[in-house]
Structures are given as structure tokens and as C-alpha cells.
């Protein structure tokens, strides 16, 4: 245990990016305090598209809303939706992959053929189609991306299960009377979990980008919800004349994605040193 603890703490990159990730989560949690009580959805058209100044640190958008407050509140929506999405694909993908790998036969065939179908489409394009059919909202954007992402986890979990499924200790456990759920929980899942956790951690940044992309295209968060992707879209028209409309939400996405990507990479270095 001590060794493992030391492995985490001795990895400076992991420590640094963990702290930064915690800072971002804290910013999201304390957005109302940090925004000084400014309502991110309330604006004054008389103050529309004003450059950053002492009153509006990041300037105002085209509805006269404070971009600083919207970026802070946007962290809540972007982080929460990304974590929900990653958790959803992690749980669904892992569960289906483990079941497919363990039971094999028709269960495997059905699950993996569905996964193959989903993979056959370009991910974001299919997500746009699904989001378009379901209607534009953050919930539907999460469902759309989850639908196209779970096969990745399912395939990975299945292959990891298959590696151990026919080993002697698994057969020994079966002949000594271990039940199916016990087998899955005690022997199959632990063999997959490390790799899948690393995958999930490194996917956070990518998923955040995909959600922001859907919102940018109008399939995710709807106005006046402060969400970084939709803020980028709102500012797009003013990219040259009022760049602050895009710069701050763009920076927020960039910084957050980099931090979570680096955190995922460092986590992989610790948990799976073979990948180094």
C-alpha cells in the first residue's frame, strides 16, 4: 500500500495535475462565490460586447452578460456533463464488454455486433445525427456521445476478459463452485479495471471537447445556459472585432482539457508502466 502511495506521490506530474484538476473542480463548485454573485444568464443589452475592464474582467457578450461569470459557471456544466458522460460509457461499456467476454457465444455475438455497428460510423457525425434526432439539449448530447463511445470500452473490456477467461485459475474457481456473479466480480472485473480507468481518465479531455463541439454546433446546451462550447459559438461572429468573446471560453476549454489529459497520462504512467 505504501509502495503504491509512494508511486502516486513520487510522480510529480501526477501530483501537479491532480492539484490543478482539484482547483478546477473547486472553481466549478464555488463559481457563485468567485463570480461575486453575478448571474451568468442575466445581462444588460446596453452593455453588450464591451471589452474587458474593471467591472467585467473578461468583458461582456452580445447579450451584455458577464463573460467571467459565464466562464466560471460554464465549468460546472462542462465538468459535470463530462464526468457523467465518462462514467456512463465506463460503466456501460465495461459491463457489456465483461459480459461478452465471459459468456461468449450468442451474448458475445449480439453485443459485439451492435458495438461494430456503432463503430462503423464516424463518431462525432453519428453523435450529431443522434443529437439532431433527440433534440438539442445537454442531456441528449451526453446520450448521443455515450451511444457512440461505449463500444470502445466494451471491446477493451472484452479483450481483457478473454485474456484470462480460459486460464487455469479461472477454471479452478469454477470447479470449486464459484458462482457466475462471483466470477465476474472477483476475477473478471479486476483484470479489466486498471486499463479501463486509465482509458477513462485519458478520455476526459476528449469527451469534454466532443461535448463542447456538440454545443458549439447547437446540439448541446441551449441559450442562455453558460457552456463553453456554446459560448464559443456565440462569439464566433465577433472573432475579429471582439475576440474576448471566444478567447476566454476557448482558454477555459484548452486549460481544462490539457490538465485532464496530462492527469490521465500520468495516471497511466503510474498504473501501467509498460506504456511508458
Amino acid at each position, binding site marked *: 500500500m505504501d509502495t503504491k502511495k509512494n508511486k502516486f506521490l513520487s510522480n510529480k506530474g501526477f501530483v501537479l495535475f491532480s492539484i490543478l484538476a482539484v482547483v478546477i473542480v473547486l472553481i466549478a463548485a464555488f463559481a457563485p462565490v468567485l463570480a461575486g454573485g453575478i448571474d451568468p444568464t442575466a445581462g444588460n443589452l446596453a452593455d453588450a*460586447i464591451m471589452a474587458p475592464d474593471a467591472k467585467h474582467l473578461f468583458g461582456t457578450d452580445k447579450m451584455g452578460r458577464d463573460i467571467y461569470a459565464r466562464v466560471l459557471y460554464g465549468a460546472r456544466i462542462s465538468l459535470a456533463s463530462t464526468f457523467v458522460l465518462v462514467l456512463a460509457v465506463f460503466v456501460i461499456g465495461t459491463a457489456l464488454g465483461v459480459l461478452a467476454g465471459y459468456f461468449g457465444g450468442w451474448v458475445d455475438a449480439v453485443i459485439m455486433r451492435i458495438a461494430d455497428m456503432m463503430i462503423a460510423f464516424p463518431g462525432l457525425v453519428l453523435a450529431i445525427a443522434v443529437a439532431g434526432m433527440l433534440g438539442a439539449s445537454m442531456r441528449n448530447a451526453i446520450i448521443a456521445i455515450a451511444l457512440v463511445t461505449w463500444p470502445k470500452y466494451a471491446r477493451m473490456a472484452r479483450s481483457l476478459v478473454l485474456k484470462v477467461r480460459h486460464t487455469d485459475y479461472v477454471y479452478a474457481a469454477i470447479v470449486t463452485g464459484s458462482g457466475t456473479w462471483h466470477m465476474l466480480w472477483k476475477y473478471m472485473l479486476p483484470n479489466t479495471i486498471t486499463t479501463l480507468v486509465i482509458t477513462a481518465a485519458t478520455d476526459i479531455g476528449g469527451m469534454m471537447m466532443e461535448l463542447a463541439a456538440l454545443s458549439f454546433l447547437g446540439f448541446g446546451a441551449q441559450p442562455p445556459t453558460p457552456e463553453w462550447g456554446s459560448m464559443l459559438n456565440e462569439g464566433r461572429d*465577433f472573432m475579429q*472585432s471582439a475576440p474576448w468573446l471566444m478567447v476566454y471560453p476557448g482558454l477555459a476549454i484548452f486549460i481544462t482539457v490539457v490538465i485532464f489529459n496530462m492527469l490521465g497520462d500520468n495516471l497511466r504512467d503510474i498504473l501501467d508502466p509498460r506504456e511508458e
Partner: protein
Amino acid sequence: MKKLSKKSAALLVAGLVTCGLLAGCGGGDKAPAKDGGKAVAKTLTFGCQMYSDGLINPASQVNCAWNVSRFGIGQTLFRFDDNVKAVPQLAESATPSDGNKTWTFKLKKGIKFSNGTEMTATKVKESLDWIREAGKKGSSNPTKFLDAGAVVTADDAAGTVTIKSEKAYPDMPASLADPAMCIIDVKGTKNFDSGIIGTGPYMVKTFKDHVGYEMVANPHYWNGKPPYEEVKILFMGDASAKANALRAGQIDLAENIMNVADLKALREDKKFTVQVAPGTRVGFSWMNMQDGKPLANKALRQAVLKAIDYKTICKSNTIGGLYTPGPSVVPSSLGYGFDKLKNPYEYDPEGAKKILDEAGIKDTNGDGIREINGKNIELRYISYANRLLNDFSDAHTQYLKAVGIGVKSEYGSSDDQWTKLVAGEYDFNNNNWNVMIAGAPTVFMANWYSKNKDNFCGFKSDAYDKAYEELRSTMDTKRYAELMQECQQILINEAAVLVDGYYNSCIIYNDKVGSAHMYPLDYYWITDEIKPAGAK
């Protein structure tokens, strides 16, 4: 060493790919043909909003009819000039008789359709008969402009078309100047959706769904040789895309760039000319007053109108003066007694709250949103990205929230917006419409006439119906103006319409284009008046 080599190779490949991509993004072959050292473009590329999937069957939808005219494919007997007066186009004159129930149109000689067929009086009759019959199934409502019972007779020898109707037309040339009444070769047209045969300066060569048209000069054009050999029409819904395409030289001409910042930058750039036409357009939201809808409640509508600061919105950096505020559905610049109208719903958020409180529309659970029948108000606001409509919708939503009226935005395409309007699936439905259809506001004002099938909001007022019935039949211009004022005042008093403001249309072109013209009635985009720079 091995690792380093791999990295170097990867960097080199990445660099080469990047250079290749950047090179690919470089300037295209847009240089026009040189003529004695002066550039004379033979191709015009035009960027515009796509309406009704870009189709051009005038019988199917209003926007399709407008597309025929706007793309320079079809023309009408008369057309509207800069003063919104009907002036001769395919006809040289129109003579009324029998108390304006009979009109005789003398056709210009030598006009041919783009397939070479002569535009005879019989062809005109066929076209007018066809549009009224085929238009029954569509939404372009040609019978609004020429009633179904009107009898058209053709005299090919004299080159005249005589129209007899039971109804008197104060100005039939103006009615027939609507794009729905464009004259097409009915028998010669094989593809009505995207291959109409008209008399305009250009004819369709190819159509790509949701991309645009490639058109070529009509070799039989009656008004001289069309200035361009080829006209490409590219559909661009995004205002910034139009502006960026103009700057990059991908298009030469664009209609209605609504981004204030882009418009300002293009105005300041000597390479571009921005031409603005005084508006006959109004941006307005229908308020759905049909039974069971929240806005059937007059107090709620009154509060909505009082809650919104129209002047600040129109003056803001977002709208940038592209709209002028006003309470009536008829633009202030058109007269019709605008200065005599009284508006009881000036911006007054406290007044709005008072109206809601007195009507029992209160926020009882303290969530900031008021309730009707125990449920939070959540009004559906339908809008689409055109002429700043989404910005108006966002602004209205913001102001309404401040007085406790919840709004849910639903932004989609113009077709989504239209479908939901017709189906009544909305509370607010934001549009930008031309008021001077057929050269007068009569047709437009029918939108609130309770016996009109296009009354999409369920507005009903006996006083309005009475005034409108007289308005549409009177031949007395003074009385017409009085009735217009009365109709406008009724709509204001009944809090029937949420008016964004009055819009000025614009057209923007680069220095390869010598001249272009935007008319107040924006039925005409591609015309023979658009000429390349340096053309004689």
C-alpha cells in the same frame, strides 16, 4: 539515436503535411479574365441564405416563388421599383376598366423564355392559370394576388392579356408583381422544383441540393445580353460565413450580412461596397393566442410587451441599428399613420410585474418564475438564424426572465420555424417579413384577420375584421390610410404582436462587381443590373 530519428522523421512528415494543407488553403483561381489590362469577371458568385431548400417551384411555397425571382430566373409582368411602385417589366402597360374589375395588359414584344419559346399572350395565360391551380396545394397563395375566379383571356395577335374578375383590384399590376405570379413556360418546364423555365437573365444549369445553383446566361434574354456568362449561387446560412467568404474572394456578392461587426469592417474596407435599402421589412414574433396556449391570456401578453426594452435592444452593439424600434407591425418609414399611433406598452418592467400580479400570475414557490394554473410559465420561443432573429429572441428571453416569465428557446432552420408556425407549435415564433407584399400592406395585415387561413396565431377581433374587410376593398387612398392606422392601433391595443423592429436590407459586393442594387422589396437579388467592374 533510433528514437531521435523516428521523432525527427515524424516532425518532418507533420511539417510537410501542414505545409501541404496550408498551400491547399491558399488563394484559388479567382482571378477574372484580363481584358486590355482591366479585369472583367465573367462569373458572379453569390452567397445567400437558403430558403425552402433552395427550390424554385413558385406554386409550392412562398420562399420558392421568391427564389425564382431573387435568382434572376423568373420575372413578372410588372415589378416594384425603389418607391415600391409597380412598374412595367414583361408588360408595357396595364389598363383598368369596369371599375377596376377588368385589366388589360399589353405585353412587350420579342420576349422569349430561356428555352427560346416566345412569350405569347397564350403563354402568359397558361402561366397565370397554372399557378392558381397548382398553387392550391402549396403555401405561396397565388390566389391572394389574383382570385381563383378571375378569367384570363389571351389575344396573341394584339399581344394582350385581359383579366376579368368579380373583385375590383385597386392596383392589379402590383398584385401581379408578386414573385408567385412570375411568368413561366408551363409546358416547356420539365423540372418544376429546380429547373423552372422563365424569362430572367439567367437560367439553371445545375442544382445541388443544399449547396446551390450553377446558372448560365439566358441566350434569349429580352433586355440585352446578361452581364455575366455564369452565375453561381451558394447557400450560406451563416452571416459570418458570408462575410468571410467575401473577404476571401470566394464570393463576389452577398445579401444581408447581419453581423454588425462584419458589416462595419466591410464598410470601412475600400474593396467592398455595402448598399442598404430603406426597409419594408418588420421583425416580429407571432404570439400564439389559440385556446389553451398561455399567451391567450391578454394580461400575460401585455406584460410581455411592457417587459422588453426595445430601444436598448435596437441600439445595442449586437443589433447595431440594423433595426429601428417601433410598436406597430408596419415599418415607421412607410407612413400609414405611424406617428399617430399610441403605444400603451412602452418599456416598464415594474408595470409588467404589476399587470402579472393583478392577473394572479405570481411566483409562489420562489424560484423566480411565475406560475399559471400551478405550473411554471415556460413559453416556447421558436426562432432561426436569419436577420438577427436569434439575437432578438435571446434578448427577449432575458428581459422576460427578469419579470418572472420563463422562456425556452428552440432555434432551428427556417423550415423548422415555418413548420412550427403553421402547426401552432409555439408560443413565440420569430420572423422577418416583408410588409409591402403586392406593393401595399393589405396582404400582410390579413395575418391577423380571423377568417384568413394564414392567421397562424388565433387572433380574433371583430373590430379588426370589420376594418380589414373595408381595407381590402376600398379604392379610396385616404380611407385606406385611415383603416391602416385603425388596424395597427387595434393590434397594439390587443397586445397581439411582439415587434422586434424594422429592418433595412443590404447587399454587399467586392471590387470585381461594378454595380448592384438592393430594392426595398427584396424580391430581386440577381438582376441584369449587377454588372462586372470594367464592363461597358
